[in-house]
């Protein structure tokens, strides 16, 4: 019996070793940093129609950054949460009439592990002389690195006519 017990224990320990095996690999996602000074927009910021704002965000990665995109969508039904901890004051839910949509993507110069955006974006106030809807919008930033890892950040913002 003792021989079998030994063999059994050997197999058990083999199974334990197998189930504990680990492997190290570059699994770092790129990061979107909104804590830099002058970062814009941050959660609950306001963007005005008919004006220009500067997108200021710091992107970092351990190997090489890829590209980024951002889009602005209405959030009148509050379908999307921001990924930030702070909650903003939101307007009551409403039906969209002429909501503003912005979608754009940008390349990051090759070989960078750190990149601070400094992009001027002009927001029109109307389309075919119809004013865009004011209210709660969702500002969504998406960042990739060369390997295809990605990070998203969703911000709640207000868009208003001044």
């Amino acid at each position, binding site marked *: 019996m003792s021989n079998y017990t030994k063999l059994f224990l050997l197999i058990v320990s083999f199974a334990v070793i197998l189930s504990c095996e680990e492997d190290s690999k570059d699994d770092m996602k790129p990061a979107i940093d909104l804590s830099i000074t002058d970062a814009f927009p941050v959660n609950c910021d306001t963007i005005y129609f008919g004006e220009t704002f500067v997108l200021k965000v710091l992107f970092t990665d351990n190997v090489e950054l890829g590209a980024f995109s951002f889009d602005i969508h209405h959030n009148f039904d509050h379908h999307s949460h921001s990924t*930030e901890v702070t909650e903003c004051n939101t307007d009551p839910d409403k039906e*969209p009439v002429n909501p503003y949509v912005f979608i754009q993507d940008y390349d990051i110069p090759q070989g960078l592990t750190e990149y601070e955006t400094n992009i001027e974006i002009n927001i029109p106030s109307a389309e075919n002389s119809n004013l865009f809807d004011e209210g709660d919008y969702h500002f969504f930033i998406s960042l990739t690195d060369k390997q295809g890892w990605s990070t998203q950040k969703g911000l709640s913002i207000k868009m208003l006519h001044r």
Partner: protein
Amino acid sequence: MHKITVLFVLAHILIISGYSQGKYILSGLVVDENNQALPGASVQLSSGKGTVTNSEGKYVINDLDNGIYEIKVSYIGYKTHLDTIVIDGNKAYRIKMLYSPLDLQEVVVTDNYVETRKKEESLNIEIANKRYLQQNLGGSLMKTIERLPGVSTIDIGSGQSKPVIRGLGFNRIVVVENGIKHEGQQWGADHGLEIDQFAIDKLEVIKGPSSLIHGSDALGGVINVKQNSVPINNSVGGTIDLIGKTNNNLIGTSFSVYGRKNWLFADLRVTMLDYGDYKVPTDSIDIYSYKAAIHNNQLRNTAGEEKNLHFTIGIIQDDFQSKFFISNVYSKNGFFANAHGLEPRNVDTDVHDKSNRDILFPYHEVNHFKVINQSLWEMGKFRFKSDLGFQRNFRQEWSEYVSHGYMPPVFPDNLKFNADIERQFDKHIYNGNLLIRYTHNEKTAFTFGLNGSYQDNDINGRGFIIPAFEQLNMGVFLLAKYEINPINVLQLGIRYDHGKIKTESYNDWFQSPVLIGSDTTLAHLQRAYGLNRNYSNISWSVGYNYNQEKLSFKTNIGRSFRIPIAKELAANGVNYHNFSYEVGDPDLSPEISYQLDLGLEYHLKKFAVGATPFVNYFTNYIYLNPSSEFDRLYGNGNQVFYYTQSEVFRYGGELHAHYQLLKSIKLGVIGEYVYSEQVSGEKKGFTLPFSPPASAIFNIKYQKQHLGFLKNVYLSVDYRITASQTNIVPPEETTDGYQLINISLGGEISLKKQNLSISAQVQNLFNTKHFSHTSYYRLINVPEPGRNFVLNVSIPFSGKIN
């Protein structure tokens, strides 16, 4: 017919020449009252010689001298057959076993069957019978059999799961029900398997390349599900199963009635399950760093229901039988309301938390209808088997209309689909198989097979992910089995397949701005172009089995393939479940995989150990590769994922051992491990998506045949250790390891002639918060279900027809 006659004559000449040895052979068939073959029955002669019937119920005993022998044939659940026979030449002796009235439970599958099947199959195989399924009952079929070595699952909530064999899932394994390949929308991570686990009598998991028999897709293996019980003659009866679970407050029943008068039998089963939101051991879920609070530990809106109907009618005669299986499997399941796919969503908690049993948006609804005819005809040395099948899989994914990208803010009312249907898939499938088995002599047998299938797929809804398509597949194979002697068996086979796929073009139902020169115009963008592609492939397999009393060894090497699916060829759209823009590649080749399998088993009376390692190489594994780009042409700003192919090397295996410590106490261990690496392409060095982590189960089981008024009492404790998964590929997250304790206990109570059986389980005894790397909800950090008490009571009833 002429050729067959010639073959017959030839075969007989060969057999006669083979027999001129001096000593005699006793051979024959063991069948039950329905003339169904009984594999694994024990056949013993008074001289001490004996054997076990093979998977077709056949046995051969060689080297017999002249004389009078007593023959004893036994099989659990049947009366032992005793007779005296005279051997004065080669003799054929057919044995009909009578059902033992002591055990009127529908199905009896003995360990003998498992052993025989394992000895004959050169690939590694796991078998589960009805009792196993009852004792391990999980939220869905795959969850129930997850404990089997090499099997894992991709779970979608508490009531749906997808099969994975040794790290391969989706379209890389085949599920066969009653001889026909089950076709749903297996490509989707959130699409569960549409099979009613209560309607299964027996299930086999074949691990390894199985294209030879099953054609395209069977690269990783096959899950073969059978409803093969036939009632005993002139009887009526049935079973009532009552099921309850505490974690998702499931209540359910599966009710069956059967009857048989002479050669005609029928069987009807109804399964109804209804469950609420399942509980997780946490009070908030961290979705992309947003903390969504959850109410009463309940994962909001994950309730569901299942309504299944099965009807079987068949005729049974000595050398002919034919069965029709008609079934409709319906399920409706809610998705976690705070995240649709990966998108964090605001929910009205007043509405959502009012009831934990209602199903609100988003949810999916699937209806799978099937008609299968399976016929078997035996004619001397020939055995013809045909399977014909029709299936319709109708799937709808519902969610509230939200304008994404350039979709209009208000849904227009002039469209042909409901605003809230995100995707709809309507698939019609026609299958046909013909198998002809020719037993040349007791050593050599040939199987010739012909498979054909046609499917037609329609799509609808506001989201586009795959185009409508039609697909035609034809395959032909030949398999030879040669028994060098009862210890050494050789099998080889070859197959040719031809497949044709035709995809349709698709234009967006909404307009997007397109820049032409310096002008921006609005256009209905074309997402998919019509494609017409043909594929052909040759697969093969060579296997060898060595079976000694204590030691058995098997090996198999095979080439399998998979025709690219419509999504891989023609996807071109945003998958809102993943924030990804998925792009197909029309030039993909069929996936080819070579695999070497070994199986080693050593068993003594009290102790057994087995190992089943494998090595696998894909010349071109097709996967969705995330790039660093964002889609520009279609203006949605999502990360672009391209279907790409790369070489992949995989290895791994399973290990199991058990030791009978005392008469009623058994210790056991099961371990499994898979390693995958892409050895070429853009993700060289990375693993494959959905790679299960290594895991081990340590088990102690107490079993007693009689304990007071109880029969077949068992108590089993599983200690499960799952390693962390740090070997990942974008866009996955690493997952920590965990340890769980699961308990199952039960037994039978004799009520007159019936055995009422009770099986109970406690899953996740300590309510441990843990994550499953392969769960659909893993990416949004939803933990696995908390503690769950499961109770299943099975009440059989029966009577006689005069």
